[in-house]
């Protein structure tokens, strides 16, 4: 015979179970147990004592778990006490099984659940964007503080970041932009030769490289190189609580960590783009010389006449915008890292993907605006 005894005392609800908790018997106590649990509040502690349960089988264990887990899931304090080792291992086993069953039920969910999930994702996305804007707001307020108190600007950190993100990135940028120049020259050489318009290769390379390709390629390299490292650096500092430690010592992380990185990248990026312009054009010139027998002096004199400085400026002006996006996303994702190492990898990936997407979207916006303006 299974029985339970409920003793509700202030904040503690003591449920003492006794007798045989077997398949034939548990039906008798099931409703009483559920009622007892329903009568508790979130503030009370529920102790289910099974010390005096004589016989205990899977039905008993499942009833107990089913009732207790439901309330634990809602944030209630439910404890099963007095279980013998055997009962304990039984409860642990069924707990695992029940979790699996719940998971499967979710998989077999109806159409409504799918909509619910889409809705939840959308809400998460909107909240995420709101967080990003609040991050931008904090950064902006730190920037205003910098402007009002110029002595608080961390020049040393900015210069170190320019070296890290800019100077050290030059070899890889040189290589990629040289190859881009080569690719463009090869592709256009074949087409232009058909029309006997080989000389237009100079226009092709000069304008496409300076206006579009080198800003984009530089931004992508920088997003992969510096954007990810910003996320990883800040993520590690968050996990090791260094950021928290700084904050307790009255250091604002936006002023001390975020702004130096953003400013450094915004300074370095236009310079890197100009460097990429030079190397890209040189790559194109090199191939034009080999493929089309165009001498370097011929190429350069044609370049001088067709490449207006506005194209170079358009490319360079994109630099700070791209840099701002990459650095802001990198730092923002770094702050989002939660307290486990796995999330560093996840957020680093997200940071690079977001940064590249934003850079391309920004570039498209530039194209539309500049075309409309006739620049």
């Amino acid at each position, binding site marked *: 015979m299974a029985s339970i005894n409920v003793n509700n005392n202030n904040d503690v609800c003591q449920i003492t179970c006794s007798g045989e908790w077997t398949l034939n018997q548990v039906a008798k106590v099931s409703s009483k147990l559920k009622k007892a649990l329903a009568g508790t509040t*979130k*503030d009370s*502690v529920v102790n289910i004592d099974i010390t005096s349960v004589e016989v205990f089988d899977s039905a008993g264990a499942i009833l107990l778990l089913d009732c207790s887990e439901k309330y634990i899931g809602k*944030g209630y*304090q439910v404890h099963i006490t007095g279980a013998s080792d055997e009962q304990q291992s039984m409860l642990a086993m069924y707990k695992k099984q029940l979790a699996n069953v719940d998971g499967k039920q979710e998989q077999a969910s109806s159409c409504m659940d799918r909509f619910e999930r889409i809705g939840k994702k959308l809400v998460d996305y909107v909240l995420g964007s709101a967080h990003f804007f609040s991050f931008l707001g904090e950064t902006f307020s730190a920037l205003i503080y910098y402007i009002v108190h110029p002595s608080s600007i961390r020049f040393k950190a900015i210069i170190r970041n320019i070296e890290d993100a800019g100077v050290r990135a030059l070899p890889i940028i040189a290589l990629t932009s040289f190859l881009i120049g080569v690719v463009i020259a090869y592709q256009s050489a074949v087409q232009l030769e058909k029309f006997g318009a080989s000389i237009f290769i100079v226009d092709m390379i000069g304008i496409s490289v300076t206006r579009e390709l080198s800003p984009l390629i530089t931004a992508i390299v920088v997003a992969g190189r510096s954007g990810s490292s910003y996320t990883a650096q800040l993520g590690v500092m968050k996990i*090791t*609580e*260094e950021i*928290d*430690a*700084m*904050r*307790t*010592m*009255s*250091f*604002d992380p936006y002023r001390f960590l975020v702004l130096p990185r953003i400013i450094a990248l915004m300074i370095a990026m236009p310079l890197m783009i100009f460097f990429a312009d030079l190397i890209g054009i040189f790559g194109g010139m090199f191939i034009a010389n080999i493929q089309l027998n165009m001498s370097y002096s011929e190429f350069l004199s044609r370049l001088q006449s067709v490449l207006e400085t506005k194209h170079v400026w358009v490319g360079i002006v994109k630099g700070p915008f791209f840099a701002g996006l990459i650095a802001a996303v990198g730092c923002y994702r770094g702050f989002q890292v939660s307290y486990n190492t796995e999330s560093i990898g996840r957020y680093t990936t997200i940071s690079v993907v977001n940064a590249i997407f934003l850079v391309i979207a920004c570039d498209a916006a530039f194209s539309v605006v500049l075309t409309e303006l006739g620049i």
Partner: protein
Amino acid sequence: MYTLLNIDNIECQYRGLSVVRNLSFEVNRGSIVGLLGPSGCGKTTVLRAIAGFEPLLSGQIQLRGITASKPGFTLAPEKRKLGMVFQDYALFPHLNLADNICFGLRKLTAQQKQQTAGQLLELVGMDGMEHRYAHELSGGQQQRIALARALAPEPEIILMDEPFSNLDIELRERLSVDVRNILKERGITGIIVTHDQHEAFAIADTIGVMEHGRILQWDTPYNLYHEPAERFVADFIGQGSFLRATVLSASSLETELGIINSEHTLLWPKGTQVDVLIRPDDIIHDPNGSIPAIISQKAFKGAEILYTLQLATGSTLLSLFPSHHNHEIGEQVCVNIEADHVVAFPAK
């Protein structure tokens, strides 16, 4: 006395679960308080809420008379002017120890910084290590640097999250006394969070014992040990065993060891079954004692040996004998009970 910090009925969540509920306490300027509890009881969350890292769901935290946290508003940690020692040290890996310690001292000259770093390193017993880096140190040494770094700016309040957990016992005892002296000397208010009662007893004036996100008892170390208000506190603080007893009158109880008189008036009606807390120091070794017992376990503690005694009725008792009373397991000894005050809880 001036109330520096007032925690009023706060509730905090951790990953969607409410880990701290209806928690209130006050801290006066210059006092040192401890939050003591088993791991997972929410004590670190309380500390992080005070520092401003955790938002509140309900209640409020007042710091220097100003509301610092309430639902929907959390004053940024950098504006609270607190010192904090983190459980995982949180030292800056790119700075040497002197720079780590002086990180928060922006207004001092280089010479003053050097002096402060030297003094603090000496305090934590690591003088001469100014130019070492955190990764070259052991966990215990890093912990000491974290403590020195938090003390350097002389904050009004210092929050310590298990600040001595990685130190050997001797160093822990010395350092906890030293830190207490420094805090008292400079009038710094301290809040320490720990699961180690000895650490809490050594440093704190008042201790709150926590379980499941609530403070069960807020009292002096002496009262926590001798007059625990709840069974959990009695169990958690110090060692001891419970013995079933029956209330005889308002001032006496009958146990299997005989009748025990209580200084306090017992509120239970006559005949109620209660569990009496018997501390190891209540059981005295006495060859002519009236209670025979068999030794079932022993643990050598240096000056004393902690014996687990089995009574004829099957109950067990803990008892501390001076170290030279070296008995073997299985041996029969005679003891006497000398309980001068009674701590009892309703029978479980």
